[in-house]
């Protein structure tokens, strides 16, 4: 990990991670094989303000119309979802299915539910639009100390523009894996609040396997209590434009989060994730690991990783990384890590970002050892993404994702 910048016991006040749009894969010099490491550079963008100072509001009218020049929108094809940032949204209930699980309730609750707004607030207009319109929130409430799993499926959202709100609450000392499965068509902007009580141990997996036409803008706000542990996984495979932005506040002493991401963009797909971890308590720990593959003309991915170590967060340990694997020409992967540190007392803080290319020379090498072209691609992609899949911790889901990844590979081969 040569690009990892590890700071330890740093005395500096604010250290924005040197950042640049690391790898526009389409401009890699020819003949470069393997991993291109993100390297520190003077150019590129440096945060203009501390991340926690961003303007927040639940009211859509408080945000200007989206132009695409805003920091949060500048990588997104905003013209393709003006209905979700400016238009009238349907905020009504929609069909949801869930597997039965004792100690986990799934129900619609009114806007007045006390939990709403406790994990985070919108920082951009699509999120505020959703917040302004939802009639009821879907609430998934976890209690009970034994490990358990629930799958909550949305498959019938249809193609009218919607706004939605979801709460996942893990009561103190509870434990569960909540898998949110998204399939079918959708034009959806939504907020998801994840609230972990003291010592709760929660895994949330958001699975985007939408139809090709779907547009999905999601903001996940998590608040992690004392000694609680959140594993958050974003898997984006299907959909036309999918933007899932998790934002986690490590609010309690000793809180811990592992943020995983897995995405596979094929021709014309835009998959984006803006990840934000706010260390707001002592001895908190975070790990961020997002991996993506790109294949096909105009396959596009964006990863922005902001880590803020606040002045209350002494003795924290954080590391974030994003790696992209480019399988064909004509793709573009942006990967932008940012690190801000407001305390001198940290155990560790590091980041890495790299975009590697699977090219003809690699193919030749593998084939020269008897491996067919198809098998060679499968080998490389599976090898690359497996590290993330294996950390999800749900064997059934892991097996299914391995198959889904292989289907992605074959899917684009046919195009």
């Amino acid at each position: 990990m040569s690009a990892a910048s590890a700071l330890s016991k740093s005395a500096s006040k604010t250290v924005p991670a040197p950042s640049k749009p690391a790898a526009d894969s389409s401009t890699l010099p020819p003949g470069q094989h393997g991993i291109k490491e993100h390297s520190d550079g003077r150019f590129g963008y440096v945060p203009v303000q501390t991340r926690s100072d961003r303007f927040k509001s639940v009211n859509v009218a408080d945000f200007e119309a989206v132009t695409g020049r805003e920091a949060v929108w500048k990588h997104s094809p905003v013209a393709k979802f003006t209905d979700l940032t400016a238009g009238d949204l349907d905020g009504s209930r929609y069909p949801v299915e869930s597997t039965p699980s004792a100690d986990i309730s799934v129900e619609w609750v009114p806007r007045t539910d006390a939990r709403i707004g406790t994990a985070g607030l919108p920082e951009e207009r699509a999120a505020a639009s959703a917040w302004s319109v939802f009639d009821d929130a879907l609430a998934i409430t976890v209690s009970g100390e034994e490990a358990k799993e629930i799958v909550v499926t949305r498959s019938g959202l249809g193609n009218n523009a919607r706004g939605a709100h979801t709460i996942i609450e893990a009561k103190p000392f509870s434990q569960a894996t909540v898998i949110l499965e998204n399939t079918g068509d959708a034009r959806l902007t939504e907020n998801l609040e994840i609230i972990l009580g003291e010592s709760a141990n929660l895994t949330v997996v958001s699975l985007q396997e939408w139809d090709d036409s779907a547009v999905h803008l999601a903001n996940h706000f998590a608040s992690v209590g004392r000694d609680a542990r959140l594993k958050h996984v974003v898997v984006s495979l299907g959909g036309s434009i999918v933007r899932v932005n998790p934002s986690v506040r490590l609010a309690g002493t000793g809180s811990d989060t592992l943020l995983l991401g897995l995405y596979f963009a094929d021709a014309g797909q835009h998959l984006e994730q803006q990840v934000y971890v706010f260390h707001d308590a002592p001895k908190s720990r975070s790990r961020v690991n997002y991996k993506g593959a790109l294949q096909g003309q105009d396959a596009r991915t964006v990863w922005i990783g902001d880590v803020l170590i606040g002045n209350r967060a002494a003795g924290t340990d954080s590391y974030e990384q994003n790696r992209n694997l480019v399988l064909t020409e004509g793709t573009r992967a942006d990967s932008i890590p940012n690190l801000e540190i407001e305390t001198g007392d940290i155990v560790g803080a590091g980041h890495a970002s790299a975009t590697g290319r699977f090219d003809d020379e690699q193919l030749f090498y593998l084939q020269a050892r008897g491996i067919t072209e198809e098998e060679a691609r499968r080998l490389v992609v599976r090898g690359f993404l497996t590290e993330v899949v294996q950390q999800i911790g749900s064997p059934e889901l892991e097996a299914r994702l391995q198959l889904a990844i292989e289907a992605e590979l074959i899917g684009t081969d046919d195009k």
Partner: protein
Amino acid sequence: MSVLEIKDLHVSVETDQGTKQILRGVDLTINEGEIHAIMGPNGSGKSTLAYTIAGHPKYHVESGSILLDGAEVLKMTVDARARAGLFLAMQYPVEIPGVTVTNFLRTAKTAIEGEAPPIRTWIKDVRQAMTDLRMDKAFAERNVNEGFSGGEKKRNEILQLELLKPKFAVLDETDSGLDVDALKIVSEGVNRAKANTGLGLLLITHYTRILRYIHPDFVHVFVNGRIAEQGGPELADRLEDEGYDRFLVPSNVG
């Protein structure tokens, strides 16, 4: 007994300046169990010959043929050539992100044998071969060639040679960039592979150094895309003393 025959091979590449002729009529026959050294100055076309045998898409065969036990190699895909028993140890092995050495070796072995190797003996074989090549155990879990030093890459090539057991192997400047200790280790590996499987070897080199450890039966001097002279091991000694100068005049560049 296997035989690899290269007949009147003409090869070109496309460059920005147009088509460039590189090989201009190569004839060479290698029998199983024989070691042939190909020696020649930089730019004479040695790697082109190696890549053409392996089937690299960049090299265009204008005419000629390559027969493996009578079957036309030029009609085979790259992977089919490997499965037919050809192996190329590359001069510059590439990095393969996301694929561990272990995974790669098993996949390659499975592809070449047509079935997965029995797990117990396979793991033992891999360990033994790595120990023999003085490769640290940790290599097995690293991505293929990623962050490997020059010497480590070459060992990794020979590791594959030992495990995949081809009928014929082309070693393209496997000696270059190796210090003397690494050179000995790598040479031992090649000699071991030959002792174990009786493969035929085409040893491409610029210097005579490696020939101290791997003894060729035949030496071919390669100049300007063809074999200019051939003989026994004594020819290598002569090259050691005289260099390639006498082959380079008169210059027929262009």
